[in-house]
């Protein structure tokens, strides 16, 4: 749930009340390099985020009739790369809720307008290579590490992000990271990166836990693993414009094996894999097996492998994907929140689902939430 305003304070009850009203007067604020240019905004594209660190782009179309935006031509080297954000406020208020925060990485002049492309400010950092084949990035001589500590070191030491170990961290949502670390208390991992980008390294680590890592609406790195934070948005037919549901065996796993205790010198795992089977699911749906043999980032203990398996999906049951189209009422929903859905026509009663993707369409006044049970 988005709880902070752009000033870093807590969103007021009055703001939330207006957001959740059936009639309101929203306004769009566009800030570039610390100055607001609301009156220039013609349109804002869809804002999309998911948990796989895909650095989405938000496109803002502005009027350049008075040539205010020609500075991108004059001083291109300094203007491109400055911060930009889109936020929402209500007529007469001075409180703003951030919707997207990033940097300008491209502008296109379509006279008399200008189109500005905002991407996550970490997009360049995520391409940074960790080590190389000749000189691997060594997370195996020392350690083992809590998986969250490994992620932290990759982001701060290698990625150069703020390493302040408190809520004051400007690049990482420290509170969420701490919850992740506590959730993964049993983890014990080592790693050896041979030129993997930070993005691919983080993705492969997250995939082991079916965890999500993303850059949030305020421009901070965020983390989520199932059951880490239990925030529930109760939704019924008054809360959504439409509700689509897909029930699929895709993503279902009922036989999961993870190798652990890797020996670099011999290029071999020294232990038999940790395995978990769901016999009744195998009988009902057939065997859907996954074997993880990760020589880049591996568990050093059976308990660490067990914990990863417990998160990563011995679901044993088909997955239910909910696609909820909601009005602005649910604009505060975040990846990692749960929604509890009731809808009589499909016989859905208080089903909990974890939000994995969010798309905000300001032009249509809607929030599209993709969540999985």
């Amino acid at each position, binding site marked *: 749930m988005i709880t902070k305003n752009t000033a870093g304070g807590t969103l007021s009850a009055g703001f939330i009340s207006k957001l959740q009203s059936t*009639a*309101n007067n929203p306004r*769009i604020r566009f800030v570039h390099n610390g100055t607001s240019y609301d009156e220039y905004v013609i349109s804002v594209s869809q804002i999309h985020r998911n948990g796989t660190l895909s650095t989405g782009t938000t496109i803002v179309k502005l009027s350049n009739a008075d040539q205010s935006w020609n500075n991108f031509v004059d001083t291109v080297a300094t203007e491109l790369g400055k911060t930009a954000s889109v936020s929402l406020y209500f007529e007469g208020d001075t409180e703003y809720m951030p919707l997207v925060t990033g940097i300008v990485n491209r502008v296109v002049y379509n006279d008399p307008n200008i189109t500005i492309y905002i991407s996550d400010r970490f997009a360049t950092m995520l391409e940074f290579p960790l080590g190389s084949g000749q000189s691997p990035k060594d997370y195996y001589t020392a350690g083992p590490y809590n998986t969250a500590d490994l992620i932290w070191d990759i982001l701060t030491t290698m990625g150069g992000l703020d390493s302040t170990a408190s809520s004051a961290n400007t690049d990482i949502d420290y509170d969420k990271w701490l919850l992740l670390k506590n959730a993964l208390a049993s983890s014990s991992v080592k790693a050896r990166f041979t030129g993997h980008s930070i993005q691919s390294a983080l993705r492969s680590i997250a995939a082991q836990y079916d965890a999500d890592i993303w850059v949030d609406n305020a421009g901070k790195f965020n983390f989520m693993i199932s059951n880490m934070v239990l925030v529930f948005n109760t939704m019924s037919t008054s*809360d959504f414009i439409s509700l689509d549901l897909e029930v699929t065996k895709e993503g279902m796993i009922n036989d999961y094996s993870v190798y652990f205790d890797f020996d670099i010198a011999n290029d071999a795992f020294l232990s038999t894999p940790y395995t978990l089977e769901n016999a009744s699911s195998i009988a009902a749906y057939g065997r859907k097996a996954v074997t993880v043999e990760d020589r880049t980032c591996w568990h050093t203990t059976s308990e660490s492998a067990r914990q990863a398996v417990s998160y990563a999906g011995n679901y044993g049951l088909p997955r239910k994907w909910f696609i909820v189209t909601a009005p*602005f009422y649910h604009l505060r929903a975040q990846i990692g929140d749960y929604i509890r859905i009731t809808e009589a026509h499909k016989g859905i009663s208080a089903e909990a689902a974890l939000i994995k993707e969010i798309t905000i369409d300001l032009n249509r006044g809607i929030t599209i939430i993709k969540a999985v049970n």
Partner: protein
Amino acid sequence: MAGTQKMKVGATTVTLSGMTGYARPDDNNRIINTAMDGTLYISDFGGKERYDIPCALSTTDGKQVNTWWSAMNTIIFFYDFDASASASINTRIINPTRPMEKWFPTGWDTSTSKYKGTIILRQV
């Protein structure tokens, strides 16, 4: 039809006396969504004033309006000058093509109006 209206940029003013066809249409950016149970959600992103003003002007005023259109000037618009000489909004002329065209009055027309057109003003 409105009474006297005025357009002003700097010290230059043009006085308009509305003709048949004067309109003040809505220009609201409003989104309406209906939830599955029928609950109505309305978000109004802000209405702006718009005035469609057919008029006939002197050569000096007609050229001035075209100059403002060409320069995309912000125009202070006194929308009801008879009632209030100070109530105004900032506008721009949003005609897609030049608003005032030169015309030739009929022989019995003794007015000095040599330019004619419909000015579309939009609050900025």
